[in-house]
């Protein structure tokens, strides 16, 4: 009581009381504003770079079948659940996940699950703002002409490597990279200016302008790509139609592969921003009579528009027209920051279109990154009654530390990759699973359906509630199991079989030129410096290489009845942690932030309990 009174005197505000609508706090100003803000949070680099790559590698047009099934079974139902729970929590006086979870599940442990919903956006922000600054840097490089390097593909790879400091840890802090640091600082500050202005005057106002601007910019680039014709008459297959075919021609055989279904579910899941802790926070600023069903569906469909209609028609077709089928083999960063600049340099008017494209990506990234700050700001303010400038300063310090960590350990983007995998992938699965269980089994689908339809302008079909209770958790577990097996654990999978006579080549210290040539024919790269070792088990050899004092396994060779089997080694993320000190430090950093947030949640929880804002079942 005394503490509350002092807080009121000091900060001029009164704490919300449980079961009292959050009418005194921040709220969205308009219906379309919140929809655009949620859609803006979902639309990011993944829509334009990850989706086309995933589709090309998993059956082209055939990928769209599991993709749309996942959208209907997993994506949209989870979105509705998050919108519903968020608004419910907001009406009970909470905007942050620890508070909202405690309302949905009146148990002392509930608030600790909310740590995931703070940790995920915070950690993702730490590296996402860096990628965001790359987009701005690339856009500006088009204005200055620095990125018009002709058709030499290696020039773009070198530019990107230098820009992100891929060669050496700490290199981005030297005097040659002041430009990159300035752009990063400007991007960082811009995010905090938006967040400081608040939900309505900052995020909503920006998204209401940014989303239409993104559509216009993307449409301009789309028209440019679709009117390219056949730029090189010597390569008639590399045309607009060829590019569209590369992206959309279906390979239905891929539908029999579990990997295709896994990739499609994963893409939907990451694309819609479910399980990030963002939607639940954004929805908490809604009023009781505000619709969540139509709004949730609209924001999801807008995200799909950017992904399928713009991302699917621009990125890969453009890359194919100039680079051929090699365009589909690139990862997200390779496609976005190496291949596409190469494409724009060869395209008529490429300097202008390159600028428009990267500026559009920058805006898309800003609408996402700003949404990552809001859940933590909301927690600091309602957990400790902090004023906006104090909470923004604390969050700025915390996120700058993480961003600095990723910036410093830039070699091979190891820190960024670790943050992205363990938080941007694994924890998102876990949080989505927690949310689906909380909604389906604790909050209850009957109450969920009732709450969702308050103020709703369309109805959710009844079977969706049963899907949320029974199908979604199982679906998530299956995807998570497949994902864990694929990426967390290491594998040696048969990729090719060589003539048995090559077994004799394996008894040498290093691979012979003949063996290397045979492997290259099968599209397996093995370093000539690799060391070959015969294992105690008869008829089995391994190729290893020592990198920075650590022995890394490259491949296993095994005598089989069909010949000499070659099993390239794919290191899982657990092995990566054990092998690389930077990877280990990154995981420890995540652990440290987790413990810090848990501590904050514990303190905030005690304050809420003492204020009577939280009441637990049976207490």
């Amino acid at each position, binding site marked *: 009581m005394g503490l509350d009174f002092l807080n009121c005197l000091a900060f001029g505000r009164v704490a919300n009381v449980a079961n009292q609508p959050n009418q005194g706090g921040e709220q969205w100003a*308009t219906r*379309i504003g919140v929809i655009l803000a949620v859609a803006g949070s979902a639309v990011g680099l993944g829509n334009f770079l990850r989706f086309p790559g995933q589709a090309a590698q998993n059956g082209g047009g055939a990928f769209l079948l599991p993709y749309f099934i996942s959208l209907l079974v997993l994506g949209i139902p989870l979105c509705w659940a998050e919108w519903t729970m968020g608004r419910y929590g907001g009406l009970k006086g909470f905007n942050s996940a620890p508070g909202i979870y405690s309302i949905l599940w009146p148990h002392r442990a509930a608030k600790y699950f909310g740590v995931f919903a703070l940790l995920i956006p915070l950690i993702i922000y730490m590296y996402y703002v860096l990628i965001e600054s790359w987009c701005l840097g690339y856009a500006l490089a088009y204005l200055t002409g620095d990125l018009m390097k002709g058709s030499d593909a290696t020039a773009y790879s070198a530019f990107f490597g230098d820009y992100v400091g891929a060669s050496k840890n700490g290199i981005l802090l030297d005097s040659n990279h002041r430009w990159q640091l300035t752009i990063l600082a400007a991007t960082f500050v811009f995010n905090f200016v938006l967040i400081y202005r608040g939900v309505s005057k900052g995020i909503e106002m920006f998204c209401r302008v940014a989303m239409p601007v993104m559509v216009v910019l993307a449409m301009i680039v789309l028209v440019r790509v679709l009117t390219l014709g056949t730029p090189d008459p010597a390569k008639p297959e590399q045309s607009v139609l060829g590019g569209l075919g590369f992206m959309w021609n279906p390979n239905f055989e891929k539908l029999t592969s579990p990997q295709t279904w896994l990739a499609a579910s994963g893409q939907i899941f990451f694309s819609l921003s479910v399980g990030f802790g963002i939607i639940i926070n954004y929805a908490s600023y809604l009023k009781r009579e505000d619709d969540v069903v139509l709004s949730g*569906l609209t924001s999801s469909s807008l995200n799909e528009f950017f992904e399928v209609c713009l991302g699917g028609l621009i990125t890969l077709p453009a890359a194919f027209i100039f680079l051929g089928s090699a365009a589909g083999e690139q990862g997200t960063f390779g496609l976005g920051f190496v291949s596409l600049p190469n494409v724009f340099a060869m395209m008529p008017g490429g300097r202008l279109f390159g600028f428009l494209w990267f500026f559009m990506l920058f805006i898309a990234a800003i609408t996402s990154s700003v949404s990552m700050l809001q859940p933590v700001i909301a927690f600091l303010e309602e957990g400790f009654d902090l004023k906006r400038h104090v909470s923004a300063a604390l969050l700025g310090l915390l996120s700058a530390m993480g961003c600095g960590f990723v910036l410093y350990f830039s070699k091979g983007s190891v820190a960024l990759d670790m943050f992205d995998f363990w938080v941007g992938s694994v924890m998102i699965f876990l949080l989505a699973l927690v949310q689906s269980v909380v909604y389906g089994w604790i909050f209850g689908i009957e109450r969920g359906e009732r709450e969702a339809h308050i103020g709703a302008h*369309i109805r959710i079909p009844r079977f969706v509630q049963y899907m949320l209770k029974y199908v979604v958790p199982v679906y998530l577990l299956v995807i998570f199991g497949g994902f864990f097996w694929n990426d967390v654990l290491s594998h040696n999978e048969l990729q090719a079989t060589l003539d048995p006579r090559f077994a004799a080549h394996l008894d040498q210290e290093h691979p012979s030129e003949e063996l290397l040539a045979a492997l290259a024919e099968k599209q397996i790269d093995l370093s000539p410096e690799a060391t070959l070792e015969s294992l105690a088990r008869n008829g089995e050899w391994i190729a290893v290489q020592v990198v920075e004092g650590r022995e890394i396994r490259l491949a296993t060779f095994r005598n089989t009845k069909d010949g000499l089997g070659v099993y390239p080694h794919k290191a899982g993320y657990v092995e990566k942690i054990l092998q690389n000190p930077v990877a280990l430090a990154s995981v420890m950093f995540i652990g440290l932030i987790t413990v810090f947030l848990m501590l904050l949640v514990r303190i905030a929880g005690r304050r809420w309990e003492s204020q009577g804002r939280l009441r637990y079942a049976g207490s």
Partner: protein
Amino acid sequence: MNPQGWTVMLVSVSLVLALAGYCLYRVLRLPPVEMKDIKGPLEINTGDIADKD
């Protein structure tokens, strides 16, 4: 681009456009939320009716 590719592309893009268009149409047709909160003069209870004399 083969006929199957055309079919998949047109169906996918059309489905998404139709869904997004329908949702936006429904949202933009609704009256602004703010209008519900605006009270006309007759709705405002000033509390002085009982003491008019």
